């Protein structure tokens, strides 16, 4: 297989994998296997998959409560992610965190943060540590457009720009923060204009086009590694409810349908077909592989074990000896 084709199929497969995984999650939520809040990424897969292509294993990721896609795209084992959603010991966070708090230090995946805007200062700090230790690493910080209204956004972008820290601020603009449309949340809806006011480069990319995202992210990561922070807006859309308890009173069905026409998976598949890089068989192969992986993940999670209740307060304090 050509490297080009291989990469294209990896991108497509990466998105399909996330989609299947999350559709399974929704089903498992209905069965009460997964509880609490569950925020699906359906529709936005091109962003996580595209961006992760640009990162090396030393680079760090900070994400939000809507982070299953990012975790999977980062290469974190689907079984461990699923086990986390079950609350099992075998989960990425040994079950303590659940859907909103996937952590995997070995993948430099620093959560999973359920406070909107809460991850931005963290990313600034990770980047500061890299800069002071002269490590050529990048920290990518994902957040929604809703977070832009928070003071943390403002303080963090300023710090990063002021100190020229290697942070890629990756804003997934899916147009809504729960039920609040961007125009009801920001006086200036051009997010790049906002970001540029901190004196950092600010770009926008079509978040429904995985190749465009990858390309922009690659350029962005190079820029960040050299010169400091950059803001990248990925224009995308969430196809499903904000979480599992959302009557979606705030948007018209027709709007959702309109965006679904730009679903990143079929669009990319069609493009690859047109380029002769994809046929029915290979698509079926990707689907089947995803199904199999998801099935294995569920099996793994089901077979997982519960943390004994006696361990309730474990990890409240760090168990390392040495700081």
């Amino acid at each position: 297989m050509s490297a080009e084709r291989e990469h294209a199929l990896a991108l497509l497969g990466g998105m399909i994998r996330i989609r299947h995984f999350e559709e399974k999650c929704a089903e498992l939520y209905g069965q009460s296997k997964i509880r609490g809040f569950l925020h699906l990424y359906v529709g936005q897969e091109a962003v996580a998959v595209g961006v992760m292509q640009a990162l090396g294993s030393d680079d760090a990721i900070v994400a939000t409560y809507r982070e299953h896609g990012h975790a999977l795209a980062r290469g974190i084992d689907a079984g461990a992610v699923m086990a986390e959603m079950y609350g099992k010991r075998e989960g990425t966070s040994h079950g303590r965190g659940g859907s909103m708090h996937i952590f995997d230090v070995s993948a430099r995946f620093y959560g999973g943060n359920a406070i909107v805007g809460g991850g931005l200062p963290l990313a600034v700090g990770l980047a500061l540590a890299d800069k002071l230790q002269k490590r050529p690493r990048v920290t990518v910080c994902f957040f929604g457009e809703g977070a832009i209204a928070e003071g943390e956004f403002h303080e963090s972008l300023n710090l990063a720009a002021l100190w020229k820290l290697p942070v890629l601020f990756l804003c997934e603009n899916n147009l809504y923060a729960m039920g609040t449309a961007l125009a009801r949340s920001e006086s200036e809806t051009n997010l790049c204009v906002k970001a540029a006011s901190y004196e950092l480069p600010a770009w926008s990319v079509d978040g429904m086009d995985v190749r465009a995202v990858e390309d922009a992210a690659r350029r962005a990561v190079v820029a960040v590694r050299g010169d400091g922070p950059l803001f990248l807006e990925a224009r995308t859309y969430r196809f499903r409810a904000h979480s599992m308890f959302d009557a979606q009173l705030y948007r018209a069905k027709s709007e959702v349908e309109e965006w679904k026409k730009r679903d990143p998976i079929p669009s990319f598949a069609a493009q690859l077909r047109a380029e002769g890089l994809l046929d029915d068989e290979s698509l079926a192969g990707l689907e089947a592989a995803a199904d199999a992986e998801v099935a294995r993940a569920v099996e793994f999670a089901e077979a997982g074990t519960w943390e004994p209740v006696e361990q309730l307060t474990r990890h409240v304090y760090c168990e390392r000896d040495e700081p």
Partner: protein
Amino acid sequence: MSDAAAKTRMISFRDAYREGLREALLRDPRVFLMGEDVGRYGGTYAVSRGLLDEFGPERIRDAPLSESAFVGAGIGAAIGGLRPIVEIMTVNFSLLALDQILNSAATFSHMSGGQVCVPLVIRMATGAGRQLAAQHSHSLEGWYAHIPGIKVLAPGTLEDARGMLASALADPNPVLIFEHARLYPIEGELAADAGAVEIEHARLRRRGGDVSLVCYGGTLDKTLAAAETLAAQGIEADVLDLRVLRPLDEAAILETVSRTHRLVIVDEGWRSGSLAAEVAARVAEHAFYELDAPIRRVCSAEVPIPYPKHLEDAALPQPDAIVAAVREGMAAHA
């Protein structure tokens, strides 16, 4: 009880809160509701659903994710002559607005020598029990009850869920109302003509005589359940619902203890530094000679609330633990 009060209907906490909001909005044109997703989304917990259609976007005001600014704006609007009800989606996010609450809302009256009153109501959901994990399960009522200059309410009954808002709005001070999120869907009987309730006193929800159980908000139903279990075992408990967490109704606390001589406090806050500690301290100061046995507290374990149900259940005060604490206390020598 009057005939009218005898007429009741089934209603959920959610709907009782909504009735209180509607009434307040209908009664006083100065009242408006402001917060994240209170309007078009219908409220995260659907408490304000329908109000946008009825009252329009000026009075059911969706705010951006800017907790500090919109709480501060509520303070300013209150000073400017309006009667804002600010909703902070949950107590977990209220930390972002705590500077405005403590350093502005709570201080203005005093530090202006009484010139600036802040008749603001802040509502927020609180508590755990829904597997929302470490950042979405706080019970910080006890923290807020530490702040001079504000009042703190914790409805644990439908009557209070329905009626505390009106009284909070009638108060010239900043009043915080903590709505336990676990209770929203719970239904029960409420008087057809339920309305404003007083917000000065604790209420004895059950009269026993063998032991005093003191609780509030999300621990009231659990404590009453424990009291039933205890009754079946021959132990009759007083159940005192604090209702008002600041200022505390110290007299009511001392009264029950002086009858039962034994005290167990139930509080969903983390044990160390919980509101339960304050209740214990008051009794150890002012009703020491009434006590026949050590005070006991049933609080949350000192752990960021874990996601899995079995661990979350173990972290929170449960009826079993209350029963066990009471039984240990009864066994203690008099």
